[in-house]
Each structure stands twice: as C-alpha cells, then as structure tokens.
C-alpha cells in the first residue's frame, strides 16, 4: 500500500499538470469465487482517453478485476464482489444502477472472438437495436458503417454485410467484436486479452486499432504480453496472486519499477 501511494504521488509529479481525469475508480475491491478469494483490496484509477494495461502472471486476478468494471461477474453465480467501483463517481454496484445501462456504457471485448452466429450487419446492429439507439433503418445503417469503419473492418466486409460473422478470419472476427462494442457508443471499452487467439499480423492490426480508439474511448486491456502492454498502453497495473502490486505510467513501469516482483516479471524471471 505504502509503495503504491508513493508511486502514485511520484507518478503525479512526473506526469505534471495535464493529468487526464479519472473515469473509473476501484477502491479496496475484494472478489470471492465461492470459498476462494480471488482479489484482495485493489485500488486502481482508470483515466479518461488512456489505455490502461493490466499485466501479471496467470491467475493473478487481472481478468477478475476487469470483469468487475462492467459487472460481468454477476453472470457467474458463485462470484461475490465487495468494495467500491465508480464510473464518473457513481458506484456501479449501487442497487439503483442498472446493469444493462452500465454494460452499454462500459463495453467489453473478449479473449476469444465471439461473434454471434448472425450476419455481420446483425452482429453490429444488435446493441443499438436492443438499446433503441436509432429511430430508423438509415440511422442504424449509419451506426453499423461508422462502427465498422472505426474498427478498421469496413473495407474488408462492406460487400458482404449479410454473410455470417462466424465466417470471418480470427482477426476479422475480433475486430467485428470491437465494432459491435463500439456500436452502442460506450465510454469505456474493456478488453480481455483481445489478441491471445490471433496471429501476429492480426494482432498488429488490432493493436493499431486500440491506439486509434484511445482518442474517443477509455480503454482497459488485460494482456499477457509485456511487449503488447508496452506498445499500446499509457498506464500499466501489475497484479500478483490477487493483489495489485504496482501501478504507474507504462514507461516508468517498464524501465524503473518500484517493486521487485514487477521487475522480475517484466524481465521474465517468473510468470
């Protein structure tokens, strides 16, 4: 704890005054899966229009934390979350908060591309439809097109929007899933190892896309790959067996970490 606060202070000093606003905030978040505790008192700020990378060895709780941010843990019966997570200052676990609205505002992209077994168009149009974001077909067409464009997929699929989304290549599927998430115009996009099922070329494409998307969205990405974290993120948080070890500007984390475990992990001694 002590280290972290110091690191945060240092970070603030380094970053200077043009520090972006905090979009989401986790305060002493604990997660239990049944008897087992998966997360211990995590405090973490997610800043607006930045990419925050969550790194750490397998089973360290980084995906668990990510899934708390849009309450996806609710879909697991045995999961229990305590502590406080806020979005723009509002507690997302407040009973008054509507989980449907929350998830529309905090979108998510998964490890394995999971397009619906529907056409490409229907995949993207699904979110706007259920949330009633459009008044007519033309508007919906517009959203589908712009979302696919933002996801850098439009040119590849514009002639076959009615073909099944499951027929695309892995990288295309993942970008389709990103387009699907963008279509409901979320404020935050959570990405759970979005490139782990992709080949290097597709990975490069998605990484490039993430960098572009930062302009309009706040992004949290869980990744296994140090290089990926270094390439795409501005801030990095290091998790280890359920604890947040260290958090700070990516550059600093990778060059001069405060915690020995971070250093060991980054240099490949464990993980």
């Amino acid at each position, binding site marked *: 704890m002590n280290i972290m606060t110091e690191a945060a202070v240092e970070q603030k000093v380094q970053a200077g005054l043009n520090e972006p606003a905090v979009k989401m905030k986790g305060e002493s978040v604990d997660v239990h899966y049944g008897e087992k505790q998966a997360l211990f008192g995590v405090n973490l700020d997610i800043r607006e229009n930045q990419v925050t990378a969550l790194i750490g060895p397998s089973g360290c709780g980084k995906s668990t934390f990510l899934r708390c941010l*849009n309450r*996806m843990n609710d879909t697991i*019966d045995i999961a229990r979350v305590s502590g406080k997570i806020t979005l723009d200052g509002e507690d997302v676990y407040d009973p008054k908060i509507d989980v449907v609205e929350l998830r529309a505002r905090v979108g998510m992209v998964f490890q394995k591309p*999971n397009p*619906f077994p529907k056409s490409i168009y229907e995949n993207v149009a699904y979110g706007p439809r*259920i949330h009633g974001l459009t008044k007519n077909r033309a508007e919906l067409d517009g959203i589908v097109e712009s979302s696919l464009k933002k996801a850098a997929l439009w040119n590849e699929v514009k002639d076959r929007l009615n073909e099944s989304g499951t027929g695309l290549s892995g990288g295309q599927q993942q970008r389709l899933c990103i387009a699907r*998430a963008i279509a*409901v115009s979320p404020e935050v996009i959570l990405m759970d190892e979005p490139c782990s099922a992709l080949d290097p070329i597709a990975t490069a494409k998605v990484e490039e896309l993430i960098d572009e998307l930062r302009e309009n969205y706040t992004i949290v990405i869980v990744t296994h790959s140090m290089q990926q974290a270094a390439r795409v993120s501005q801030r990095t948080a290091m998790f280890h067996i359920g604890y947040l070890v260290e958090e700070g500007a990516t550059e600093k984390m990778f060059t001069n970490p405060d915690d020995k475990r971070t250093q060991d992990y980054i240099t490949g001694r464990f993980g």
Partner: protein
Amino acid sequence: MAGYLFGFMALAAFVAAFLGAARGRSKRFAATEKTHSRPIYHGLNAAIWTGVPAFVFLLLWLLFQNSVIDMLVIGSYPGADSLSGSEKNLLISEIRQVAAGSVFREPTPEITAAVAHLKSLQALSSWAMLAVVAALVAVGAFLGIRAIQTRYPARHSVERSVTWFMMFSSLVAILTTAGIVLSLVYEALQFFARVPATEFLFGLRWEPQIAIRADQVAGQGAFGMIPVLFGTFAVSALAMAVAIPTGILSAIYLTEYANERFRAVVKPLLEILAGIPTIVYGFFAVLTVAPLVRSLGLSIGIDSAPNSALAAGGVMGIMLIPFISSLSDDAFAAVPRAIREGSFALGATKGETIRKVLLPAALPGIVGGVLLALSRAVGETMIVVMAAGLIAKMTLNPFESVTTVTVQIVTLLIGDSEFDNPKTLAAFALGLVLFIITLGLNLIALRTVRKYREKY
C-alpha cells in the same frame, strides 16, 4: 421336444468344454515346447464345435418346419391347386385342429387322410430333427476335441468364431430394416394388385370395412388414403401446437433461469412424462381429457365428438414435451458461454440474449428435435387408437373426430386376419406410407442435429 434338445445341446457343449480344457491341460504338461493356447481356449473351442452348428441347424429347422409341412400336406390334398390362399389357410387350420383332437363335426375322408399325412410328417420331422442334431453334436464334439494339439491355435479359432458372431449381430439391424421394407413392400404390392395404386394414393374416400364373406353386409369399400393422412397430420399438428411452445419454454427456463437445485428436481420429473407408456396416456385421454374437451366444445357452442382430434392431439402433445424440451435443452447448452457473455457485455437483458442470440443460434438443434418429435407423433399409436375416431374425415374442426394411419393399421389387423383380402393388405400399404414418412423425418432430423453438433 425342442426345449429338451436345446438343453441337451447346452449340456453337451458344457461337457465338451470340460473335456477340451482337460485335454488341453494334459497336452500342456506333456509338451516340450510352449503350447499355443491356454487350456480354457481348447475347451471353449470344443464347446463351440459341439454346440453352435447344432444350435443353428435346430433354429432354422424350427423356423421352417411348420411352413414346409403345411405345404406338403396341402400339396397332396386332392384338388388343393384350385383353392385360393385363404381357403388353403382355412383348410390347413382345420386339418391341424382335427390332428390336435378337437373335432366339431365328422371330418371328411380327405381331411382324415390329410391328418394322417400330417401326423406322419410331423413324426418324421421330429425324428429327423433329433437324428441330425445328435449327429451334429457328436461329430462336432469329436472334431473339436480331436483338434486339440500342442501347437493348435485354439485361441485364434475361438476369437474368429466370436468375431463372426459379432459381425452377424451387427447385421441384425440391417436385417431388421430389410425385413421391414421387404414385408411392407411385398404385402403392399399384393394390395396394389387388388386396388389401383392411384386410387390409394390420391383417393379422397376411406371406407375399408368391406365384406370378407359373401353373406356379410358391409360397404362397397374405398381405399383412398388422403383423408387418413389428413387426420394423421391434423392430430400431429395439434400435438405439436402443445408440445413445441411448452417444450421450448420449459427448456429455456431450465437452462437459463432456473438454479441448479430446481433443475436437478424438475428435469427428471419432466422425463417421467416420456417414460409413461402410451397406453396410459390413451386411457387417460379417454377417461378424463376427452369428456372435458367435449364439454368445452359444447359450452362454446361447437358440436363436439366424444373422441375429438383435440383430446388425442393434446394428450399426445404432452407426451412429446420432454422430447422437445430435452433436445432444446441440449441445443441451448451447446451454445458456448462466450456468446452469452458477448451479449450480456453489450448490455442485453437475459430475455434479449435468449430471444435474439441463443434461440437463433440453437435453432437447428431445436428444429432437429421438433422433427424427431413430429415423427413420433405421426407414428404414435396407442393414444390415437384409444382416443381418436375410426371414420376418415377431412375437417379442420379440432372438436370433430378424425382417424389416423396408425389407428387404421391397428383396427384393420386386430383380430383374426387373412393375408389375401384388401382390408388386411391395406394396413400394410398404410404401414409402408407411415414408414416412408417417418424415415424421411428421422433422416432429416438426424442430419440437422449432427450438423448442429459439428458447428459447436
């Protein structure tokens, strides 16, 4: 007699097994080189040699002896050539009855002669059977035991026999289908020799209660299957109207909403519905549902038959709920969790996820289940035999009574039946139609389900 013979063969095989094993053991001790097979295999081999040929022979003999004897007796009966098939059958049953000692009137000299002939043939047959079986057992035992030598590969021999038995067993399924197809086609062709196929296939009247004997009073007879087929699909449609929504909705609730404990209790309870014999449903339909449906119909001013299509179809639908529910259940469960999460992560409610993502994704699996259930509805017999009508009518009013293919098959064949009148043969023609329809539905359903399984 045959029972004793089977017992004798089993005993002989046992003895041969012991002798063979003993001889195998003695060879093993005496041998200077390693014996090929363990004594038990020598024993088994001897038992197979002893028992199997005789067993197969006896089975075939018993299957064909009656037909052959009947043919011989009839063949030597004066003037039998001019008799028709049913007259021959009557004659042979009379001869057999007289032979069994039940005489209602003084038999004619021809009959008496035929009875004597029958009795001599039967005696001959059983002596011949006994002699051949005894010879086969003896020769088999001799060969089987003599074959035992130090290097005799008894294990290979036993394993080869076992493999042959297994191959034959797997052919039984093919033989069954072949038997079904051949018997249905054969009898149906007989039928079409009497009633034109076009009348059967396209005729709009079904009145099969024709006179069998000249002195009976009955209708002219008409064998158009369209109204029967219509009734079948009317009842099936009513059944599916009950089963599809109930089955799919309960599967949705069980897989998506219910907790583990609820599911563990309710799912087996639903399966009970599939385990109840259909005759029970039939009786229940007659006892309880049909009167209810009838009074319902009368209360809303529709003239209702006591055995309405609705009662039969409704009860059948309930029987089909577990089929559709468990196949839909499988189909929902096969949709990967990732797809559900993808939908939830976009802010969809559970209901939206089910209706807009899971249902379309699981649709092929559900359709396969529905087709299997439909095939069952079309072939279901006892519920409709008890609860549906006998008169073939083309009506869309579910409170009226209709008849079905299976009902007609059963009513045409129940009681004594002769194979040469159109009434009986019509049942086989209907059976052929039923077989083709259900075969088609099954094949499509199995293919759909398999394709769906491959997808996930």
